[in-house]
């Protein structure tokens, strides 16, 4: 029986165009950065469309997309790769970042601040003009092909001092700022993604706006576009609008009974 000496994860391409509604010049900027081989940092609140934007760009640029959702136990080995033992042999398995570099894919590290501090260091040489990934365990230096692109995202809304991105990391990236889109555009997105009529979408966006007014007054974040789309999808499936908003928005935003009471009031003000 013969074992491979190396395993590489399969990278998939996005076949169908993901729905994305551009709000500014982000598409052009991203394409420019890609041509100039610059890494990109997406910042913005949760659920405002950062991930969807990357999927859309991967489809548009016809590159495979590797997404890593960062968490606080994510180690360097989780990104770069590790040795596994198969039978009596050790076999190297590329981590998602190494795989993306070799394949010239777009590697998207979602919520980079959640990862352990030491992991951000492996992306440093990749994110400047060296464009190198060092795999120390194999003594290998992988030069990134021109197609490879590094994209990271973070949410500056978290107040925690522990979740700040270091200047040495952030200063390597072209930063694109995302926010909840302006009301009419957001209504268009909610109508399209949630398959509801324009009036329902408009009301959902209004509700989103009302909850965003409560940011800092008991809520860490207002309702994201994603939550509004969830509510819309429930409504499109026949759930009564107020019930759908209570479940998809009010309960999703807070556990505090006082606060959910207020959110219910706002739901009933709109529906």
């Amino acid at each position, binding site marked *: 029986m013969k074992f491979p000496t190396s395993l590489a994860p399969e990278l998939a391409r996005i076949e169908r165009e993901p729905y994305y509604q551009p709000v500014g010049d982000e598409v052009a900027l991203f394409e420019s950065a890609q041509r100039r081989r610059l890494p990109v940092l997406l910042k913005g609140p949760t659920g405002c469309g950062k991930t969807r934007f990357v999927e859309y760009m991967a489809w548009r640029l016809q590159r495979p997309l590797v997404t890593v959702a960062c968490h606080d136990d994510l180690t360097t080995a989780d990104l770069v790769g590790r040795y596994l*033992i198969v039978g*009596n042999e050790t076999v190297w398995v590329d981590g998602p970042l190494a795989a993306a570099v070799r394949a010239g894919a777009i590697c998207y590290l979602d919520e980079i601040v959640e990862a352990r501090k030491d992991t951000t260091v492996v992306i440093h040489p990749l994110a400047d003009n060296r464009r190198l990934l060092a795999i120390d365990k194999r003594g290998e230096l992988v030069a990134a092909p021109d197609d490879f692109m590094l994209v990271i995202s973070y949410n500056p809304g978290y107040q925690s001092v522990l979740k700040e991105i270091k200047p040495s990391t952030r200063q390597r990236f072209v930063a694109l700022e995302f926010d909840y889109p302006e009301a009419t555009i957001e209504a268009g997105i909610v109508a399209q993604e949630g398959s509801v009529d324009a009036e329902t979408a408009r009301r959902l966006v209004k509700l989103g706006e009302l909850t965003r007014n409560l940011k800092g007054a008991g809520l860490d974040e207002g309702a994201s576009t994603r939550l509004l789309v969830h509510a819309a999808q429930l409504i499109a499936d026949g759930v009564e609008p107020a019930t759908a908003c209570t479940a998809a928005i009010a309960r999703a935003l807070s556990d505090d009974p006082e*606060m959910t009471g207020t959110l219910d009031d706002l739901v009933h003000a709109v*529906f």
Partner: protein
Amino acid sequence: MSASTRKLFANELEERLDELLFASTSHRSAKGISEGLEKLAREQQERVLHWVGVAAQSYAEIGYLVAALGPRALARLDAAGFEAWVLAGLEAYDREGGQAAMRLLRDLDAFCAARAQSAARLGDLEARLGRFLQGLSGRPLALAAAATAHTDTETVFLPAQLAALPTARDNRRLYRAMAALLWAQTRHGTFGSAGSDVAAAFARWPERARAQRWFAVLEAIRLEAVLGAELPGLAAEIARLRGPWPARLLPAVARLAHPDAAVSRTLTFLEEIMAGEDEPPQLPHAGAIDLEAALRVRAARIARESETVRRALSTLKGFGGRQGAGEDAPALNVEGGRVALSLDGEIVALPPEAQAAAQSLLQDLGEVPPECLVPAGPGAWQPTPRQGGGEDALTGHRQPHARYDEWDYRRRAYRRGWCHLFEVELPPGDPGYVAKVGLRNTAAIRDIRRRFELLRGEDRLLGRQPEGEEIDLDALVDAAADRRAGAEASGRLYVRRVRRERSLAAMFMVDMSGSTQGWVNDAERESLVMLCEALERLGDAYAIYGFSGWTRTRCDIYPVKRFDERYDATVRGRIAAIEAKDYTRMGVAVRHLTRLLEAQPARHKLLVTLSDGRPDDFGDEYRGHYGIEDTRRALQEAHERGVRSYCVTIDRHGADYLPRLYGPARYTVLDDARKLPLKIADIYRRLAS
């Protein structure tokens, strides 16, 4: 009949009442009252006596009134109702004083009616309504109780209690509807906009009061329709609560109920009405309009905010040498609710204070008036000066930083916003103090540093794991050997790095009451020096606050080291400046520090109190049981919020009450204050490892 269930006779009752009301300034005899009480069953007699006692603790006259009205109240209310009646009286006393309390208690009819019809109370809904209003508009509106519902554009006044509708649920909704309509008055131009001057319109009518009554009704019609455009659910609810419009309002409805109607349309219609003699119908959901108050507050706000915007502009203009180009007037772009400034062709963001001011102006006037766009004279950008600050710290005119509820065990209820909390800066003390303490305790400090360095969290490698970043060679060799020997080989072949995280935030609450004068205070300060040494080694987040105070209106908290401050010369100076001050009102300090601790991201939160005695305050109120019960309650609240508390005390009698406050094994009693500095680091090590 056994002694405990037998009715009390008038003479016995009189004796008990005299005891309870002994402090009363009135010399009325309790005789008449005890005769009234004699007819009640023993259980009821005891209930009345209990609450007389509770009430008399606040104000003897209220106790007297409870005793006098007790039989009548009990005839109409059940036990819970009776309790609610006394508590409502005491709350009125806390809020508005004796007269208001007596008035409320005497008006038993109103209380019973409200209770029977399940009225809604503003006190219960205040927080929720406040957030509701904030959700509707970004500008915060305060809520307050008043006899009639109205707004001065900064505060929404609502009746303390609503019983207009048959169910409590509907009354609560009515509150919401009223609040929303009053908010709409401030939001949708009832008090004028750039285009229409309401004050000038009203100047025409001699019957100003009648005009205002009509204006309130007509605006309720118009605003409901305006609300309906954006908030159809709310408008539908208002319509349901008010029922059909009275027939004689129908012409007004036809004219005003349009989603885009402006206040000018109401004024035109009002003109026609004022030609006649009619009084408007009463609408339960429409508040009144107090035009004078609203215009006054609004004008003051507009002036204040225009000034803020202008001052912001003056710095922007001066910035980057643009002074010379000042001839071009700046223009404001309002897009998607944000105000941006285009200055000589460049888009400039306003500072946050000015941004808020500009948006507030937009709400009031529908535009940012052109005169705001003339920058103020030279001078640095400075938002409107705020009240407060260090210089008038003891004048008594300062605004508290926060108000906290206090638990009254006799009432079994909170006294709302009872304690006024001030954060007071400590003046810098002897800068050499910490160094002197260090010299005196060199050996102890070296020992502390060494032991705490060992405790510090480091990454640890775990061997023989099912997965991990590296191969565990030992495990691999063992597995290979096992396989050769024909045994089952383990699959746990990897090494994994785990973080031993010390996610702990510690808050030290230091007693600065008068009783710590002398060596207790010295011991506290030395202990803090030791602690800081230990914690600096350990790297835990920590903060130190002193507390003291003089009655509920002056609860002082002295920051020694905040969480985000470093252990530097300033903090060292403040440690030296800790001194014995006044009293120990502990509950409010616990509540405040819990709130600060809660904001820390750490997983474990610890509140350590260094104290020399039981909770106490000036006057009799807080002394004894009351203070202990309030502190216990505050510590319970802290526990519910995930804050663990611990107490280190040198009160030898501490063992009597500390188990009740902190629970067993959550405190240490030292018999000698001088031991505190040497022990404190060890105590902390036990708690935090």
